[in-house]
């Protein structure tokens, strides 16, 4: 039977409101690629990734055409390289990043994630070498994304790692200074990182995952905003109900396409990540949804509450639509990748402190924020520590992806291009956190009772 209204609505969602599947990410375990000889290990890594992903992009493109819903990014995530490379006697892992880059090129994907280490409680030899290799690895590759987990609710915050990452982020910014420190856009630090996140820069294939799997990140901020435009002035129950219904539809669309690709590739279906992910394009902004809920400009008082209800309603609608929900699942609030957020920075309605408050109620954290290039390492570490504390205490994922743009200061803009967008530099506190960061050690895991 033909239901004209539903069919035309779906077509409009894609054509007018930028509905798309943001990413389909193929997770590949590299646990069997470890070798005492680094060269041999890298050959195994390249062979395994390219063999398993041989038809990935081709099948994904064929399927998206059949369903008429675009899949914007095809990506690969792998086991954290610190675990694999740690078996070798190498003292520098840049070559591992280069082999991932090459494998990503062969597969035809646009990013490959997993140049990662999990150090919430302490460093292994491999973790330390990997982290020290990050700046050069990101400077000498195009597609490789790197992530480091610094804290979990169960282990506390590794403050030695927090301190180290402040320095690593600055070094990465310096080595990619010719391109507005773009290396930092491919590096994220986490508290409570999830093992099945399909979104970059933080995607890696966790050690508890299967040999391979396909996970999907759906999107559609434009679709949600359009649905809200039709209910102007109505109460919050109506707002939540409208968001839930929209999230249901977009999740279902993502799931049916992902399951078809997984069947065709004979790779198990992983998870659906329900995150609303913006792009710099007009009409694809999370900030504009918050404004549609009733705020003059994103960052005004009420923004945190609006974001909380948006995030919760998206999850409720999405969970009803799919039994395979995982990953980060929430709303992303990156600055450079969101047209409404960029405009909010430019008109002075949002600052880093408000963004930090917003991260308490949505997925991820301080994301794609450009800050002055002369920000001290310890200030970057302290921002990371604050974000880790929010994640650890509230038992949620939080992340930091800051770009200290070399040679630029507040008032200037960093241009990254493409999906990474452009970011007006934001001010950070001028007061020092040096002594706080220099203490080192670990902030213990929090108590799980007496919650106030």
């Amino acid at each position, binding site marked *: *039977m*033909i*239901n*004209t209204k*539903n*069919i*035309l609505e*779906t*077509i409009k969602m894609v054509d007018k409101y930028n509905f798309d599947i943001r990413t389909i990410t193929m997770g590949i375990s590299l646990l069997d690629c470890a070798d005492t000889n680094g060269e041999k290990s890298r050959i195994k890594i390249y062979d395994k990734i390219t063999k398993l992903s041989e038809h990935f992009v081709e099948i994904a493109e*064929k399927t998206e*055409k*059949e*369903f*008429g*819903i675009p899949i914007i990014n095809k990506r690969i995530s792998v086991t954290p390289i610190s675990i694999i490379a740690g078996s070798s006697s190498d003292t520098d892992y840049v070559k591992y990043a280069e082999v991932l880059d090459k494998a990503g090129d062969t597969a035809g994907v646009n990013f490959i994630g997993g140049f990662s280490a999990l150090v919430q409680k302490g460093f292994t030899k491999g973790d330390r070498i990997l982290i020290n290799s990050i700046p050069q690895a990101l400077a000498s590759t195009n597609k490789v994304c790197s992530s480091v987990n610094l804290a979990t609710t169960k282990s506390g915050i590794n403050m030695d790692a927090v301190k180290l990452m402040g320095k690593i982020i600055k070094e990465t910014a310096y080595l990619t200074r010719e391109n507005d420190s773009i290396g930092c856009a491919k590096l994220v630090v986490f508290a409570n990182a999830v093992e099945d996140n399909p979104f970059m820069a933080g995607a890696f294939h966790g050690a508890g995952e299967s040999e391979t799997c396909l996970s999907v990140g759906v999107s559609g901020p434009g679709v949600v905003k359009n649905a809200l435009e039709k209910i102007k002035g109505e109460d919050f129950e109506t707002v939540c109900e409208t968001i839930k219904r929209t999230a249901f*539809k977009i999740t*279902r*669309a993502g*799931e*049916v*396409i992902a399951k078809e690709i997984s069947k065709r590739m004979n790779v198990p279906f992983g998870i659906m990540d329900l995150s609303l992910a913006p792009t710099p394009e007009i009409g694809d902004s999370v900030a504009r949804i918050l404004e549609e809920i009733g705020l003059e400009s994103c960052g005004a008082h009420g923004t945190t509450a609006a974001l909380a209800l948006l995030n919760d309603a998206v999850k409720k609608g999405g969970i*009803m639509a799919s039994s395979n929900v995982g990953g980060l699942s929430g709303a992303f609030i990156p600055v450079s990748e969101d047209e409404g957020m960029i405009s909010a920075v430019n008109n002075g309605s949002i600052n880093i402190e408000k963004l930090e408050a917003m991260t308490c109620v949505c997925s991820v954290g301080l994301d794609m924020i450009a800050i002055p290039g002369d920000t001290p390492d310890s200030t970057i570490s302290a921002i990371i520590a604050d974000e880790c504390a929010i994640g650890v205490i509230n038992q949620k994922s939080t992340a930091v992806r800051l770009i200290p743009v070399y040679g630029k200061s507040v008032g200037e803009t960093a241009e990254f291009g493409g999906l990474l967008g452009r970011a007006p530099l934001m001010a950070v506190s001028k007061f020092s956190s040096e002594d706080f960061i220099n203490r080192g050690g670990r902030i213990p895991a929090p108590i799980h009772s007496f919650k106030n």
Partner: protein
Amino acid sequence: MKAILTIIGKDKVGIISTISTLLANRNVNILDINQTVMKEYFTMIMLVDLDKLDTEFSNLQDELVKKGQEILMDIKIQREDIFDKMYEI
């Protein structure tokens, strides 16, 4: 496999005949047609059966899009199951 074909654009003579000829040449069976004209805008939705399609889905899609450009209509073909999944609990 069933698919939904949508044709949207300014109304003119011969739209259905052009498209149904193309489909017949490719061995595509039309199961249902729904058509409306609002003001001068024409919207037609067809449910078609592709089980006996004599070419790849993507070839049929390309041919339809090309034909659409010739007759100045926007033509899309999508698998039917996407609509069922999105709108049914």
